[in-house]
């Protein structure tokens, strides 16, 4: 497995919506890492505590909402142990399934679902997450 010390690890499908959001956050090079697009590709191994950003595509009733590539990544126990929080991407059009993949991962791993945004995120989402993450990591390191 390819090792990464990124503090922000994300999955984005070929639509690149989540990828664009992460780019807009303007994090320093090497502090973000994208999970492989194809499930059969080898997943990443985190070496530092990180926040996971993942999209939901609006499955009915939440079944199959978490992208397979994210499941493969979280099936690695050391990755789960380093997960500190989740940020969900989605679309409010999906009613109670809005960002449900983030809810599922947060519940299964016992970490907070820190924020939800739609599609590639607005400027306001970008600045809220930018500042929120800075604060979050400060709190985490003082623990």
């Amino acid at each position, binding site marked *: 497995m390819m090792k990464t010390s990124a503090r922000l690890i994300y999955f984005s*499908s*070929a*639509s*690149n*919506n989540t990828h*664009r959001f992460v780019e807009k956050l303007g994090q320093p090079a090497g502090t973000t890492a994208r999970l492989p697009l194809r499930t059969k590709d080898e997943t990443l191994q985190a070496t530092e505590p990180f926040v996971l950003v993942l999209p939901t*595509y*609006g*499955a*009915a009733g*939440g*079944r*199959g*909402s*978490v992208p*397979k590539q994210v*499941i*493969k990544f*979280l*099936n690695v*126990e050391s990755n*789960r142990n380093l997960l500190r*929080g989740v940020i969900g991407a989605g*679309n*409010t*059009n*999906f*009613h*109670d399934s*809005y*960002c*449900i993949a983030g*809810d*599922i991962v*947060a*519940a*299964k791993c*016992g*970490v*907070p*679902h*820190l*924020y*939800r945004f*739609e*599609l*590639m995120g*607005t*400027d*306001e989402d970008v600045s*809220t*997450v930018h*500042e*929120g993450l800075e*604060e*979050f990591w400060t709190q985490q390191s003082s623990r």
Partner: protein
Amino acid sequence: MTTSPEATHSSSLLDHVEAINWNRLEDEKDGEVWDRLTGNFWLPEKIPLSNDIQSWNTLTAEEKTLTMRVFTGLTLLDTIQGTVGAVALIPHALTQHEEAVYTNIAFMESVHAKSYSSIFSTLCSTKEIDDAFRWSKENANLQRKAQIVMDYYHGADGLKKRVASTILESFLFYSGFYLPMHWSAHAKLTNTADVIRLIIRDEAVHGYYIGYKYQRALENETEERRQELKDYTYDLLMELYENEVQYTADLYDGVGMTEDVKKFLHYNANKALMNLGYEPMFPKEVTDVNPAILSALSPNADENHDFFSGSGSSYVIGKAVETEDEDWDF
């Protein structure tokens, strides 16, 4: 007008056809979206609309007329998208699987159009229904929005068709969708709102997919042409927006909701742009949708779900969510 060098695998519907092989996908998004759309399939007959009769009778005459006009307007858009819009995209498809997805979209739009008739026949008299349809034929702003989109659907530019189609799916419906969300927030016509939510969910997948295919097709274009299309997108959105503001006033001025509906329009216009890969244009000061409407749309969209904004004191770590996926190892 610039002619498009857009790569298409067939130039018209009547050309040579090859058997579609779903075991050899050129774009995995086609399979993913097909599965999502077929998994979301629904019919209005499954929703107990007659449970709304009592609630319907609590509306004033003006509110009833407004509701019926809104639904005939939505019926018109679904009719266009089902019989013209989605079908017009087929000759421009980048893959055979994309063509197949458009046939699904076209059919579902016809289901949407028919579901409004189910609502009408459950709640209203034949005369009321005829009056509402007459209004939709005579309202200049509704007809104008239909005409603007239809002109692009009949044009030759596949990329512009995709833009018009995405804007229809992700923006033009929302002056109408506002009202059933408003009634739902006031515990009225809740079964009707359930039907509309199913439509809203479908339109999100449609707008996402057509917008995604637009972006894929853009990859084959020159920088100059990309700029032309970006300018065209913002111009078309503004043209439709200005018309939409007047249409909204025609409908909602009488009940004093126009300003609130406009915020919902701005919010959705931004999402239409994002579906096309462009930055949102309306600032947060004008996209602050009424929280009751947002919560009728999605119960998870309110501030209580934002850990970063300080409402974290009452914040609970994820509720247990059912998941049946066998792939998890833990």
